[in-house]
């Protein structure tokens, strides 16, 4: 008996150690999600009500013009932001990997924006793109009287300015991930490729990029989550404007929760976001777990 008692005690202690995580998981992650989904199926407005209306809020949501704009914006932003960030980040990583001088300095320069908040990023770019005093004025002062760069106040172009700022913020992150991937490639592979007489671009295309699959996946998933979470940047840079031209779903939820007092619609929007994330992340997590499972086997 005496041999068993400390084991039982330890087992209990282990459960005690996991208690905070378990509580958070059950109360916050599961409980709150369920609550939100439940509200999204009621006719709640300012105050929660328990009047079940099925998917009526979702119908209203997808008929809502502002939501449509938000979703469209998110799609445009998401695709462009991810493509440009990954392309630029990869190119930067490859360039830095050519044994250039000042590697540490360059790396710091490309990554520092990532350490700052989206609020700071948004405000800086708001200032740079300000048509009255910013880049447009600079162009005109240089003698190009017809120079125009007023995207930030144009409804049809404002979303691209968000892409601009976000790429500046995140390309360094992609670079860091890719650089880690490149440095992880066996040196002998490069030697073998040189003895095979492969030109460098060919090695990157046929050998290296296929080997960096995991890095590309990681970068994509990270960027994709920040796309869905996109909120601060839109608030700071344009506050959704001009008009509703740079609204995004996360902002739609927040505004309807706290300013417009429409809980039903807000939670329906939040639930839609959750479903989108699940559609992106689910397959990736599955793939990851299979990969690590294979690696352990």
């Amino acid at each position, binding site marked *: 008996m005496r041999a068993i008692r400390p084991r039982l005690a330890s087992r209990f202690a282990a459960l005690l150690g996991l208690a905070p995580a378990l509580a958070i998981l059950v109360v916050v992650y599961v409980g709150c999600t369920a609550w939100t989904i439940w509200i999204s199926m009621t006719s709640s407005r300012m105050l929660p009500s328990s009047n079940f209306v099925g998917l009526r809020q979702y119908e209203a949501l997808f008929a809502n013009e502002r939501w449509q704009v938000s979703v469209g914006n998110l799609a445009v932003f998401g695709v462009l932001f991810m493509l440009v960030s990954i392309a630029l980040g990869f190119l930067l990583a490859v360039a830095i990997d050519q044994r250039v001088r000042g590697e540490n300095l360059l790396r710091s320069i490309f990554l520092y924006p990532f350490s700052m908040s989206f609020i700071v990023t948004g405000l800086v770019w708001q200032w740079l793109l300000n048509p009255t005093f910013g880049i447009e004025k600079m162009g005109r002062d240089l003698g190009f009287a017809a120079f125009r760069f007023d995207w930030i106040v144009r409804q049809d172009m404002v979303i691209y300015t968000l892409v601009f700022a976000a790429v500046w913020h995140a390309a360094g992150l992609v670079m860091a991930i890719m650089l880690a991937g490149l440095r992880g490639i066996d040196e002998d592979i490069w030697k073998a490729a040189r003895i095979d*007489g492969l030109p460098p671009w060919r090695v990157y295309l046929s050998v290296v990029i296929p080997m960096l699959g995991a890095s590309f996946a990681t970068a994509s998933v990270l960027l994709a989550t920040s796309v869905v979470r996109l909120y601060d940047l839109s608030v700071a840079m344009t506050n959704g404007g001009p008009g509703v031209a740079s609204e995004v779903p996360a902002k739609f939820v927040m505004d309807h929760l706290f300013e417009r007092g429409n809980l039903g619609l807000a939670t329906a929007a939040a639930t839609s976001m959750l479903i989108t994330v699940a559609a992106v992340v689910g397959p990736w997590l599955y793939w990851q777990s299979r990969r690590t499972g294979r690696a352990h086997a």
Partner: protein
Amino acid sequence: MTKRCDVSIRGVEISFGAVRVLEKLDLEVAQSEFLVLLGPSGCGKSTLLNAIAGLIDVQAGKVWIGGRNVTWEEPKDRDIAMVFQSYALYPRMTVRGNMSFGLKVAGMPSAEIEKRVAAAAAMLKITELLDRRPAELSGGQRQRVAIGRALVRDAGVYLFDEPLSNLDAQLRAELRVEIKRLHHRLAATMIYVTHDQIEALTLADRIAVMKDRVIQQLGTPNEIYRTPANRFVASFVGSPAMSFVPGSYEVREGLPWFHAEGVAAPLQGYGFADRLQPGAPIELGVRPEHVEAGGDISAAIEMVEPMGSDQLAWLRLGKHPVSMRLSAEAVAAPGAPMPIRLPPDKLNLFDAASGRRL
């Protein structure tokens, strides 16, 4: 597959920053020779191989391959092929893709590529693996593929950079035989880097033992084993290792003797290379299989290690441990006295200060 190039290294020096890695090194490798560069890690052997391949620039000196000065040539223009320790297979290509990719990029007609891949695969018995990916292969199979990728290049010189070090003992022995067979069959020039002295002894036509940026001794396996040029070579080559006893050189009644505390061994019959002053400090080295039982040097058994085919007895000779090979049937008990004889013609004597063979 008929090209066989000779390789000539002339006064090559290499430094990494302030660290000198190779010191003014000369080395000639004949056509169809199997040369092994043997040494502990950090001795510069891999660096030398990389320099021959053109993967590392030399700071001074020249590299000639097949009668051509290739010092400034790209690796692909040096008529070489190379096999790496980590296999360095392209992970996302099939075995066939790995073997043919270099040729394809070089613009060789695909019929010729097919032919070469098939021939190399047959030679290495990997034909049924051609459509698999490296991740699906065992270590031994991967290294066969890597060797295959080198073979299809039909090069004048084949370079091996510790190709078997990542494999377990049994596979290592198996592939060692395979490589030796390959060399017989192709009669190609091969330069092979390893830190494993058994590999060196079994494979090489000639071995270059390296340490501290220079070649310590260059010779056939037999020469290296029997007449090591210095104490380092003697201790590095051979397993179980040579035993060493420090002592001094004495002359008694006109005959040379080795003398240490509690030990006196006659040296008449030893092929001295130098003239020694009596009393000179020297070190005696003897291999376990050369220690003979039943002489007039007294020693005692301390411990016996059965090794299957034979036994290794650890003796105490004066103050120093000496190992001795015994047949598996011999009866040896720890603590028993064991008089021995040290045959002078099989001994090795080294200068105590410089370690040079005397």
